[in-house]
């Protein structure tokens, strides 16, 4: 089995899956009907992307695991998403900050992946990038509206931006899997995405009258399966039926 490719696909798939799962918590509870619909759209896009990545991962592994077996029958230590996406939805400012940090990175990463030497990755990324462009546009818009809205919304938005900042470093981290993928032309040098990402953050925060958080310390571990405590609960909920009734078709 091509372990580098498999791990790489799991990372992409798990990021989308877990963020989609988090976003879907809002369905029926959004601050206004139009947002309920928009958040669900984003959740649906990410779920669709997760299914492409995980199905491909299953094929590469060639051990009989399809998208569902990978999604529902792995435990926390085998999930490869970054810590950022598993963070709780919190208030709308936390959801927006989490989404913006991710979208700004995701759009850049997908742009690079759309030139991947692996044709299947390039095709998935090309389709996903169009969706990510819309997600980013939307999250930029909300960062600005909440940042430059009322005193309360400004305060909440700044708190959320600060609280989640320490989970952004991992997006640009290169480990041995990323380096091997880069060498083979499968994926980009993630470190090189940091500068354009930072430009997007600075420009958006300036318009939102928000401070770019100054924290230097970055949490890491998700990509190698060392997660925050929150992921276990996300999985317990998501995997319940498959775990309670093993081997059933749904």
């Amino acid at each position, binding site marked *: 089995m091509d372990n580098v490719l498999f791990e790489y696909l799991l990372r992409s798939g798990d990021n989308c899956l877990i963020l989609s*799962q988090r976003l879907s918590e809002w369905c*029926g509870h959004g601050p206004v009907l139009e947002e309920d619909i928009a958040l669900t759209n984003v959740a*649906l896009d990410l779920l669709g992307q997760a299914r492409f990545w995980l199905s491909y991962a299953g094929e590469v592994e060639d051990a009989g695991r399809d998208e569902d077996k990978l999604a529902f029958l792995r435990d926390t230590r085998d999930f490869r998403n970054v810590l950022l996406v598993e963070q709780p939805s919190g208030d709308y400012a936390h959801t927006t900050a989490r989404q913006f940090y991710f979208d700004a990175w995701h759009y850049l990463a997908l742009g690079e992946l759309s030139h991947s030497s692996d044709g299947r990755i390039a095709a998935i990324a090309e389709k996903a990038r169009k969706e990510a462009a819309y997600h980013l*546009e939307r999250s930029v818009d909300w960062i600005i509206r909440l940042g*430059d809205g009322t005193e*309360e919304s400004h305060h909440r938005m700044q708190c959320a931006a600060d609280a989640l900042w320490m989970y952004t470093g991992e997006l640009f981290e290169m480990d041995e899997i990323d380096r091997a993928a880069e060498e083979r032309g499968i994926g980009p040098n993630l470190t090189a995405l940091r500068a354009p990402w930072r430009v997007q953050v600075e420009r958006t925060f300036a318009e939102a009258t928000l401070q770019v958080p100054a924290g230097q310390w970055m949490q890491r571990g998700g990509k190698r399966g060392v997660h925050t405590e929150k992921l276990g609960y996300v999985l317990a909920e998501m995997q319940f039926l498959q775990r309670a009734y093993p081997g059933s078709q*749904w």
Partner: protein
Amino acid sequence: MATAGIQTNPDEFQERIDAGIKIEPKDAMPDAYRKTLIRQISQHAHSEIVGQLPEGNWITRAPSLKRKAILLAKVQDEAGHGLYLYSAAETLGVTREQMIEDLLAGKAKYSSIFNYPTLTWADIGAIGWLVDGSAIINQIPICRCSYGPYARAMVRICKEETFHQRQGFEIMLTLSRGTAEQKAMAQDALNRWWWPSLMMHGPSDKDSKHSAQSMKWKIKLFSNDELRQKFVDQTVPQAEFLGLTIPDKELKWNPERGHYDFGQIDWDEFQNIVQGNGPCNQERLQARISAHRDGAWVREAAAAYAQKHPRGARRSA
């Protein structure tokens, strides 16, 4: 209310209705017609919004990624239906804010069916199959109702509901062909959702207080009992196909009538739920109140931003 001041001759109005001419927002209409429509359309909109909750309860626990995607899309459709219906009601001179306020204050009703809990995954199947099935039967005639905006909104809604019903039936089919535990889950869901689904067509004709006038105005084209019979006749063969048993010992084909006979509906239970005593009445309303309250600062921020930056001039990204 653009047209509230215009005097309406009730006979002329009735003649238009009888001639099958659609009433449009700017047309003169009797106040009672307007009020009836606002009540009915807003109740319908609220039902879509509250109806998101019991199904939304299973989105994060859907058993496969495909089922999760379908359920997310379905619940999103319900929110969309709420949006069209609020817009249709707004053409009658009421605002969405007022309607939502009435809902949250407990003054406006929504479909009582959503005050039952979704306890297992099979409930998602049963809701699609039975609840959306009942809703379609109630709603298809509304596509031909006398008020133009309502009729047009219903055309689109009915198309989507038909898809919803099919996905619900498909969940039930998969479960009923699955393991013994899954089949039991499906049967249990049918047992719990059957009678409430029959109640969705409303009180029996003899007890329905709004029916006669609504039928005259062609807001309603069939009586509650006619619609209920249609639902039963349509659903019994589907249950047979699934190999599930409808929980009604009196259910029997009546060759003389050409319809199924069925047992007595427990109208006390229905009245109790309408009055707020259903298993989830408090929870459902509280969920809407919390979403509205917790979202207030977001809506205020959006309004404040729009005021500071008129014409929505910004564009970065």
